[in-house]
Structure formats: C-alpha cells, structure tokens
C-alpha cells in the first residue's frame, strides 16, 4: 500500500477500483453517449483515449493528469453527478484544469445528494504507480491510499 497526498478540490471519502488515463480526459467525448443513451455504467466513448475507450467509468476511482477539450466539460461532469453516473472520485496528478474544477465545484455547491471527492496535485509518481483495478481509498483529509 502506498499513500499520496494531494489538494482537496471537493471534500469526501470513497473506496473504489482504479481506472487510469495517462492522457487528458476529454470529458465531452468520454461521457456524451453515456449521458444521452441510458448507459448507467458510463462507458467511455473517447476514441482518442486508448486507456479509457470502451471502459466503464461510473463508480471507478478515475486517475488522470487533467481534462481537455470542450468547455461543456464542467457541465457534463455536473450532469453525470446529477444522474448518478459519475466516477466514485477523480484523482488528478497535476493541478486541476478550469473545466474539471468547474464540474467538481458545481456538483459540490449545487447538488444536494452528490458526493464525488476530487483531489488534485497528486504528482507524476501517483500516475505512474497506480494501475487499473488497484484499490483506491480517498480520505477526508486528501490522503489517497493505493493498494493492489
């Protein structure tokens, strides 16, 4: 088991299996089909992301450097949270980008029943260490535990 400390963007705790993207997550391209066509598991639809394409994102500990692409990104994440199709948590190796930050804050401020802890600045080592299906535990104080 290894611990990483990041900055809390949206507070909360979660335990889930890791899903790792080494490239930026294109939020719109990844979630658009899932939100529109009743896919409760949120299968990633981004053809340009070989790490995630075709994999289920809902309920996973999504580990990534940052998000990229359309400025609908924040509201797409917000809607995924409102529909219960969001990742269990989002863990960024880099400082968070403006679109993911918007999604994280909007769900935290405006959705009563949403809980998606978001931690950023976990460092490059975090993203090189974590692998798909490892168990991730996020704690209230921003500590992220990764175990096989």
């Amino acid at each position, binding site marked *: 088991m290894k611990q990483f400390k990041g900055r809390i*963007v949206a507070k909360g705790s979660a335990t889930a299996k890791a899903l790792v993207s080494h490239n*930026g997550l*294109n939020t*719109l*391209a990844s979630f*658009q*089909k899932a*939100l*529109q*066509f009743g896919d409760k598991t949120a299968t990633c639809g981004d*053809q*340009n992301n070989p790490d995630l394409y075709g994999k289920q994102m809902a309920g996973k500990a999504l580990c990534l450097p*940052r*998000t*990229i*692409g*359309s*400025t*609908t*990104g*924040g*509201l797409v994440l*917000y*809607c995924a*949270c*409102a*529909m219960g199709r969001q990742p269990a948590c989002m863990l960024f190796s880099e400082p*968070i*980008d*403006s*679109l993911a*930050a*918007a*999604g994280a*804050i*909007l769900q*935290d*401020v*405006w*959705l009563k029943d949403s809980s998606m802890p978001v931690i950023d600045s976990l460092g490059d080592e975090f993203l090189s260490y974590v692998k798909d299906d490892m168990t991730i535990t996020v704690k209230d104080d921003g500590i992220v535990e990764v175990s096989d």
Partner: protein
Amino acid sequence: MKLTQEQQTILDGKKGETQAKVMETLVRYGELFGADEMVPITSKYNHLVTSFGLKALGAVYSLLDQLIDAGAVSKQEFSADPRPLDKNVPANLLEKFVFNNFMYTKQEEYEKQLEKLGLMNKNAFTCTAYMPEVGNVPNKGDILSWSESSAVVYANSVLGARCNRNSGIIDIMGSIAGFVPSFGLLKDEGRKATWVVRIETSKKPEAQLLGSAIGMKVVEDVPYIIGLDKYLDGKLDDDAKAYLKDFGAATASNGAVGLYHVENITPEAVEQGRSLIAEGAREYVIDDAELKRVYDSYPIIWKNKDAKPKLCFIGCPHLSMAQLKGWSRDIKKALEANGRRKVAVPTVLTTAPDVLEAFRKEKEYQDLVNVGVILSYICPLMYMNNPICQKVPTITSSNKLRTYTSARYYRDADLLEIITGGRN
C-alpha cells in the same frame, strides 16, 4: 481571495441563497487557481457554450430555473453556440424521430430559458459570434466570462481579449455576478508562452492539422508560433482570421489551448514580440513529416473503413463569409474539372444565421445551391452526437468534429476532390 464589500455581502447571503451560491461557486473556482481578486467583466456581450436542449442535461435546466426564479438574471446579453437541429440538413425518418422525440426534447423550453436569461436575439446561435455580421466582437483587453473553447481561444489570441477557458454554467454565473476571478489568461504572466513552436513545413500547413499537432503537444500551455506569418502574408486580414479560427479550434479541442501567439500576426505578438516567451520555454518543431505523423495517427472508427461517404460537413467552427465564398468558387471549379453538375456527396456548409442571411444576397450562394450544397446554421457536432448518425460514414475538414464524433477528417483539398467526384 480579497473580496470587495459588495462581493462579500453577496457571499454572506444578504442577497439570498442563490446569489450566495453563485458567488461561492466563483470564489472557490478562482481560489483553486490562486486568484487574488474578482475583476469586473468589461465586454458588451457574453457567450455561452450550451445551446442544445438535450434531455440528458436536465440538471442544467433545473439549475437555470433556480437562477431565474431567484431573479439571478444576467446583467449582460449573450450569444450561444449553434442550434443542434435544422430541417434543411439531411436526416432520415429514424434520425428525425430520435432527434425530436428522444434527444432534443427540451430545445424549445431551453431557448425560452435563454431568452429570460438575456439571449441577444433569435439569431444569436453560433460558435463564431465574433463574426462582424453577428456583432459579439470584444475589444482588445476586455475581460470576458465566455465559454466555447474555439471562441475563447479566438477571443484571447486574435482579438486580444482576456478570458479563461470557462466551463458552461460558470460562463453565465460570471455574467450574473458581473465579476470573474482574476487568474490564468486574465493576467499578464498567464499570457506568457511556455512553448516555442517553429513551423518548418515546405508549404502553408493545413490550419486544422497544424492546430491539432500543437494542441496535442502543448495541451493547455501557451505556444508562441514562429514561421507561420509568411504563410499568412504577414497580416491579420480576413483570410488570416479565418485560418486562425480553424487553427485555434483544433488546438482547443485536440488539446486545451486557450491562447496562442503568432509572431508578427496576433496583436500581443505584434506589440511585444519574443518578450512574450517565458524563460525555459520548451520547443516543438513542425515539419512535413511531423504533420504526416499526426495525420496518420487519427483512428478511423467507421465499421467499414472503405465505405463511400454519405455526408460531408464543412464549417466546425462556423464558416466566415470569406470562407463561404472560397468554398463556393472551389467547388464550382472542381465540379467543372471533374465533369459534374452536382456534388457527389451530400454536403453541408455551416455558418452563423446572420452570416447566412448576408450570404444569401451574394452570387456565390446561388452557385452553391445550384450544385446541390446545403447551407445551414446547425452545429454538426450536436447533429452527429448520437449512435444513429455515428453509423453514417461522414467526412469533414474539421478536426474538432473528428475528435468528438465518428466523422473522418480530410484535408480541404482531399475533401474537395471527394465531394466533387474526383475520387472516392
């Protein structure tokens, strides 16, 4: 973050819970990026990315209702991205059924919400609201609360306005508050280039391909581009603006670029030159081989990779008047060369409603109609954004459309040959 007394009063809830939540959202957003203050928005108009009444965005409409009910209405009028539907664009019965009964069932309702929130006018649906015909053209130095990645990067780079890559919803919240947190591209230091890109191609690079290459490489950083000015005749005229519109959209969708500087062309590069380059900036050289590598890396996700194209979209982002005229001339000439009277593939050129109205008065409009080209104000991305349209082999010269849909990207010249029957 240091707030003014007025901002603090709102945050403390003296103007109601909804206004307090708007302020909390903006303050938390800014604090994440080290914003030290909220600064007034100075542009005349805002621009919103969300223009589509998708059933799946129910949570957004509920939030907007909360804002309207609480009287938290924008102090600024705004334009919004293109409408997702246009009856002129080919769609079969099944597609029409899905659009009208499944996907965009909230369109009418959503447009009424937008009107209550401050939509400029019924034509203000385009991703290129900065076209003179539309009239949402910020001044150099204006502070914006815009979203729409292609519009933000254009406003920052070509117009010299100041705007972060705001998400949808954050855009209108800034407008409601009248302030945006000051960080990133709003600050002089955030506008410094951390990449130097040297263009060493043998000819003018395809805008959408060059933008894709740079976006993928620098991701969210600011590039300073050297060697492109000679291909833009050294000036920021209408042709250069159209080129940079398409280039920027590709940098923003294939990466997350919010600002670029082109040496001797874009306003800040003209004024400040290489002093815009930050210490320790990395370098990226683009030659013919690099562009080929990027082009060859695009996956083709058609089930049948050899399928004959059934639809072509040109105009994501929406075309300028000069581009419409250029495509009209090029298509006419290529059809003559290929011995055809009509286009070989159903082809849709997309542009802003106001540009389309103006273009209808031009000779080139009738030339396009005569050869079977469809003119539309639609958002091709929203049109293709469903499993049925995704199965139709669609071609495009838009790298943004390629990124978000199953559309296959071709360079302009290749696309022209295909739609005019010169090749399959």
